[in-house]
């Protein structure tokens, strides 16, 4: 049952990803990305990380998708006639990277995971206990990103 779910989710994930990188329409690509992120969230569930799956759906999928669509609306899709530049070498290099990673994975011992990875409570305690300082620094990073994005995207006033 779990294996079947894993394989079907994997196929869904990779298919959606392929759609992201090949779709002619950027809107379609954005929604395909949302699909692949959701499939990943489902995989997180299988990996016994429900909190992570929830965060993935709420923050990542929702936030990213909203941002992207918003940007497309503002900037205009104005899609080029040609989607790709030099797709053949890019594809070969991507395949080579996959082969490299796969050969590395081939050296790992196979086996089921330990499982029972987290409860939300554990993660919360970890975040506000051991990882409190990085967590707070992260908030500074997010704040900086907000300011940076505002600064960059702001229209220059004619003055």
């Amino acid at each position, binding site marked *: 049952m779990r294996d079947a779910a894993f394989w079907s989710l994997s196929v869904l994930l990779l298919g959606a990803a392929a759609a992201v990188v090949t779709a002619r329409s950027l809107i379609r690509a954005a929604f395909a990305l949302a699909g692949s992120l959701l499939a990943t969230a489902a995989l997180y569930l299988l990996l016994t990380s429900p909190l992570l799956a929830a965060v993935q759906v709420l923050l990542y999928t929702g936030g990213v998708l909203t941002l992207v669509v918003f940007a497309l609306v503002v900037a205009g899709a104005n899609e080029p006639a040609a989607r790709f530049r030099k797709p053949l070498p890019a594809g070969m290099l*991507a395949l080579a*990277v996959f082969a*490299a990673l796969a050969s590395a994975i081939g050296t790992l011992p196979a086996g089921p995971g330990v499982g029972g990875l987290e409860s939300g409570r554990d993660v919360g305690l970890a975040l506000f206990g051991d990882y409190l300082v990085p967590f707070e620094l992260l908030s500074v990073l997010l704040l900086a990103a907000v300011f940076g994005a505002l600064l960059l995207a702001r229209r220059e006033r004619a003055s």
Partner: protein
Amino acid sequence: MLPLALTVLAGPLGALALIGLVPPLRRSGRPAAFVAIAGTAVALMAAAALAAPFVTAAPPAPAAFELVWMPLGTVPAIPFGLLVDGLSASMAVLVALVALLVQVYSLAYMAGEPPSSLGRYFAYHALFAFAMLGLVLAHNLLQTYVCWELVGLGSYLLIGFWFDRPAAGRAALKAFWTTRLGDVGFALGIVVLWSAAGTFTFAELFAKASSGAIAGGALTLGMLGIYAGAMGKSAQAPLHVWLPDAMEGPTPVSALIHAATMVAAGVYLMIRVAPLLALTPAVAEAVFAIGVATALLGASMALVERDLKRILAHSTVSQLGFMMAAVGSGGAAAAYFHLLTHGFFKALLFLAAGSLIHAFHTNDIFSMGRAVRAMPVTSACFAAGALALAGILPASGFFSKDEVLAAVLAGGHPVGFAILVGTAALTAFYIGRALLIALVGAGSGASREAHDPPPAMTAPMLVLAVPALAFGIAGPTVSRLVAAPEEHAPVVVPILGTLAALGGAAAAWVAFRRGALEIRARGPLAPLIRALERRWYLDAPFEWGYRVLHAGVFRGIAWLDRYVVDGAVNALAWGTWGAAGRLRAIQNGRVQDALYAVAAGLVLLAWLAWGA
């Protein structure tokens, strides 16, 4: 003693650095001259202080100072060092003294030069003085060789000082190439000796050679090489051809370099390695034979020369032959004595000749004349030098030539002795001829308004005249300087020498007392005289060789350079150009192309980590 020895070198080197590195000083002319003179004066004082203990009755032991120069791993390191003994200290005094006098003389002689080239002239002088003193004080062969080449460079620069005269440029090149020919042998000889003995240091070489630690063949080969170098520098036949042409340089330069010091470097070197020469009789024989031949050759060519400086140049060649003959027959002390006296009287002769040339604006002795009344000081100085050169009592040349002849006779060379006595007669004849024609005769220049030069020129001549006349009494001291036993020549030697000199002088008097009377190329002697005027046709093989080299080898080298070397360089350039054109694509400022490299790097890392 070490600080003094270093001061000897530091004086001229400091002057060279100051003049060379401070362009305003060099361009200012006379201030640069004073800097050079001060540097040489410092060197002279230090050298005198260095030499003073060695002329006492109880001379100190020779002192050597050395530092590691090039560590060579398993073989002994190459040292850098100074050797202070009677020979080097006294030679340093001669070099510094003549250099100082010539520089003072040059102040007036070269006064017509523009300031910047005057600065250049004195910079060259400082370079030469430094190199020559370094050569004299060197305590190993490699260092000698380095200074040897520096001295050659100084000579080249000064011969070609008036580089806008084609003849000067050609003469500088000729001197450089001819001496290089010998230097190749010198370098090979050093290498041979080093590979056989494992050391460059004189003292160690002597010790190893006398204990038989150096194979006989290698020693002979090495000494032959060193002698080849000395042949080039000391103008031994057939490599003498450069010295007469070197007279294209300024006359003070000829006095310093091509008479008193540099050309004596070859003789000095042979005296320095005399202990090795004593172990290689075959080489010593060659040194002797070539020396005798050179002495005769030089004197014969001086007989018919019209150019005053060239007469003196041929005479230098001849006198160097005398010295080499003495070295080759085991009389290093005699050779050194003659080297010193010759340094004094030949420098004097050249400076006096410079004054004559300065006054008459020509080198041709037949265009001079009646100088005795117009230029009494110059004439007296020239006469003193001529007396010494001819070897007539009581001038210094008499004593040193006497010792040379005695050494040759003691070395068991009666034939060589006879030739040298004959050459001494020729010497007296040709210098008498020059003196009578230039000073007494009624040449075309006799009516000119000639007068003695300013004191800056006469003072050095007068200073040099003293040792030229009186240095003969220093003979025993010189023997002590080189630690040679005092020998008493058979009484027949000075008698024969004096007779030869007086005979030559008398013949000159008979032939030239009425003033300008040229030996005409006529009668049975005509072919001989023509051969002499053409300098025995000895320049021709060199010119032919040079031309053949030029036509054949050098053209081949030029072709090689143009198409192979340049071709390779051009190919490299074009390759770089082409590769740059392609590689420019990397630096196109496109972020995705940069990412290709990142991804490829990832693949490479993975392959390194797991693939190989």
